[in-house]
């Protein structure tokens, strides 16, 4: 099949940029997961759905709002009551879930094309993200694995912390280039590298 086109392409410039002479403090990349799937449980079915997620991905979800986990290949996090975003480097996650999520449990929505995954990493990741989002990125308030839903102006974003200094941001594909440009712009003062 034809390769999926990245919405970032004309603005995706591999290399070091901005004020990088003293070293880069931000790494930016597009993770391009093969699958991005949204799962939503009917009220009361949340635990059953979480078990289904574990069965398909092997990832255990902690209880509580915004809980999540990642094994580097697959990631999952809650972004709303009973709703989860699951991603996988491989394609085909939506059909795998369609087999195990019965109509009585909830729904599966394939968003593999519709969301763009941007990873920001480095010692200044919290600093740069704080320019966009009015949420607390400090580690105690936003632990590794957890997910958050928030907005930067009109750009709706789901953010998962996948490392102490690393965040994966899922934005609507149509906004992705605009957001990417803004992210690069905001990273200039600390020096950034696109990988």
């Amino acid at each position, binding site marked *: 099949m*034809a390769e999926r086109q990245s*919405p970032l392409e*004309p603005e995706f410039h591999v290399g070091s940029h901005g*004020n990088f002479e003293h070293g880069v403090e931000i790494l930016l990349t597009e993770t391009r997961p093969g699958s991005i799937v949204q799962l939503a449980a009917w009220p009361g079915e949340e635990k059953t759905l979480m078990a289904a997620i574990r069965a398909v991905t092997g990832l255990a979800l902690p209880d509580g709002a915004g809980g999540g986990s990642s094994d580097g290949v697959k990631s999952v996090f809650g972004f709303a009551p009973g709703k989860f975003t699951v991603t996988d480097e491989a394609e085909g996650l939506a059909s795998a879930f369609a087999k195990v999520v019965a109509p009585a449990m909830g729904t599966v*929505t394939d968003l593999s*094309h519709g969301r763009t995954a941007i990873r920001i990493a480095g010692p200044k990741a919290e600093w740069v993200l704080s320019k966009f989002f009015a949420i607390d990125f400090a580690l105690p308030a936003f632990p590794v694995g957890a997910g958050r839903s928030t907005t930067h*102006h009109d750009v709706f974003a789901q953010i998962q912390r996948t490392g102490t200094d690393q965040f994966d941001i899922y934005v609507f594909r*149509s*906004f992705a280039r605009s957001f990417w440009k803004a992210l690069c712009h*905001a990273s200039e003062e600390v020096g950034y590298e696109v990988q």
Partner: protein
Amino acid sequence: MSPRRTDTGGHVDRLKTIRFTFDGVAYTGHGGDTLASALLANGVTLFGRSFKYHRPRGLLSAGVEEPNALVTVLKGEVREPNIPATMVEIHDGLIAVSQNRFPSLTWDIHAVNQLGGKLLSAGFYYKTFMGPVVGPLKGTRFWMFCEHFIRRAAGLGSAGSAKDPARYERMNAFCDVLVVGSGPAGLMAAKTAADQGARVILADLEPRFGGSANWSGETIDDASAADWVRRTVAQLEARDNVRLLPRTTVWGYYDNNTLAALERVSDHKAQPAKGEPRHRYWAIRAGSVVLATGAFERPLVFPGNDRPGVMLAHAAERYANEFGVLPGQRVVVFTNNDSAYRSALALKQAGAAIVAIVDVRPQPSAEMSALAGEAEAELLSGHAVVATEGGKALSGLKVQRFDMVAGALSGDARSVHADCLLMSGGWSPTIHLASQAGAKAEWNEALQAFLPPKRTQKWVGAGAFNGHFMTLEAILDGRNAGLTAVGATVAPMAYPHIESLPCDPRPAPVFEIKAKGKSFVDFQHDVTAEDVRLAHREGFVSVEHLKRYTTLGMATDQGKSSNVPGLAIMAEALGKPIPEVGTTRFRPPFAPVSIGSLAAERFGDLKPERLTPMHDWHVDNGATMYSAGLWYRPMIYGLSGETVEQAYVREAKATRENAGIVDVSTLGKIAVQGPDAAAFLDRVYTNMFSTLAVGKARYGLMLREDGFAFDDGTTWRLGDQDFLMTTTTANAGKVMQHLEYFLDVIWPELKAHVTSVTDEWAGAAIGGPKARQILAACVTGTDVDNATLPFMGIVHGEISGVPVMICRLSFSGEMAFEVYSGAGHGTHVWEALVEAGRPFGLVTYGLEALGTMRIEKGHVTGAEIDGRTTARDLHLDWMLSKKKPFIGSAMMDREGLVASERLELVGLIALDNRPLNGGAHIVEEVDEANPHGSIGHITACCYSPALGKHIALALVKGGKARHGTRAHVSDPLRNRFGPVEIVSNHFYDPEGTRMHG
């Protein structure tokens, strides 16, 4: 060395020379200088001309409250006016100019206004420009001519028109404790809270932390106060739970402990570092706030108190001790309180002669007399300054015996030769932020000052903010505030050892010396004591009215030094005590905020925009892009030399003759999934969806609860419990919220989920007599013939190896199909379709041709579904199911919504063969000069290539009943008047034979 720079002392770096210009003259200063201190060191006394009278003005203060010394800073083409010279840190290449003078600062033509002082008194603008014009000049152009010059003569600096290339940013921050102000109180609070493990932000508007400790000359625990500051700041810097924000003005205190601050990141640099913003706007959400914002010294009000060389006492102390600059050689101090004695001594120690200390109090304390002796100053107790002399610099002053109880002067005036007069009228705690947070300030009789109001949000005060002016009190307050802010128990502490001069904080209640001459209350707006009394005589009794009428406190300094003296004078005029007169509530911002920082990244190139998957293809292939909301869509694909009209006419024609393809990815798409999805759609749409077969689509209409039309679109049934709803581009977000509201709030029992999948799918609509042939040439895995893909049918197949979903539906009125693919494959599929269409004469078309073909077909869009039209108005009543209730069904039959005289959708044809305009009115009477009697208006118009006529859709009273009649289009703004024929909105192929094939 500059004439007024001391050899030692202060915190400037004398080894570092910085070159800058002021009004075109080159000067040098040192590292750590402000523009004010550097110019003062160079002997400059004249900094600006006053607002109304163009009086020469010098420095009043050394800080953010400066009302006089406002300058314009030039950076390239960009001019930033009205910056206090006291807040500008000099850097190499700094260019600053003075303001409100013509042609030059030293020779100002408008200084003649000083002679006409009576004319420009309080309420001048109201009386002159807003009142009725009477007298001989009434109705003449002469008065308007004068107004131009008067307005030009009065004012501040002027803004430039060059685009500001600087970068501005916004930053969100969270902390347990925000400490505002870094004097001894703030520093101690920050350290205490940080020691408790709290996340602390410490912000100070000055570049150097430490506040008064930097110039007080006191010692704290056997170190100089300035060293104590350095040590404490170093401790804070070493902690990772503390963020230090120098040059950061906290200017707004909003609900739920949200505060706004402006960080001047790179104004002090010749060039910002790469990517570094000029200003950063901080939105800080703080668990609690420590307000350690200090206090402002007040001027005294007496004739000539605005002459260059007259300065606040502590400001002079600060220039001497922090910057190593002497504001004068022969200094007189004029005070109503003890604190000025310390300033006198500081200047004496820095090398100035203190000629006299003029104290309004009949008998200053023995301690003060001793300090006066130490300063070798003649102590003139029970005296007041009644006049000042000199032009652009002070040359002398007059002193007279003064009875502060009666406010009366007596005896002969005595002349004193001096080049600098320091005044102190007591201190006003800087309670602005607490006042913004809510509640009213409280007057303290002993301190003659407004103290912080009762707490309405989570803040704690410390130090001079609380009216605690001594350093020891500040440090104790700071520690307690730090503990309180983190919720820790306040335990007693060992007192630090502080060496400071004695000072009783209670001033004498003297604000004004009444004598002949202009006595200024508000220096920046040129409001005099007499203006305040005039306002009272003219009937103003409320302090809020006084403020507006005299403009006292309304300048860029927001009356930081003038509010309390102004109130005191008003209170005296009213014969009421100050607390009964009350004070105005402070509002944000505390100090001026750059507009750039508020706009931040939402400006210009960084404004968010939405692009379809095929965006780059469109741009590469000659499309002129058009912004539709946040989206960018092709308007036309113009050939060279083509006008917009020629392009869309060609595109529409080719589509109707052969085939055309248009990007419809922007249509809102919502996945509606779950066992109750069909039932939910039945309630949401006016027509039935539960009866729709899997693999079929249906056109649907939604109403609002009030019965008006809301949105339309097709919804595709992809599975038994799986629908794909499409909405208009503009309403996608609104429809989504509408659906979510009903599922969450009204019908929580329904098992249906809605998800925005707009961005999941790329959409290409391909239509025209040859559209099916083109699809047949490139689609694999399914047939596209009439049997397999009937009207409103859906099939799944592949194009060029990529899965696609094809629905046969038509907006153009032609045999048409919408081809959906994963967005990441959008361009791939689009290119394959364009390639397959080449032999068939396929054209790409944009919004203009799309709009033209929809007008020809009479389809409605947002222009017609405008929130005021009903389904009946739009002839969509055939879609209103009678078998079920739906959103809006209960309200849609209300009397007013079914009235016969409502505006209904019709078509119009221009009978004079000229273009029609959107928004133009339709009238019955032919009265071009006096158009009246509108019967409706045009919602959309175009030249129709299919009809060869200028046509329009319109909403017209009576609608259908007028088909076949004539009326006139009237559009006086665009000089358009002409006959039209009213026809059906279905101009083209009303039977739909082309669409059905």
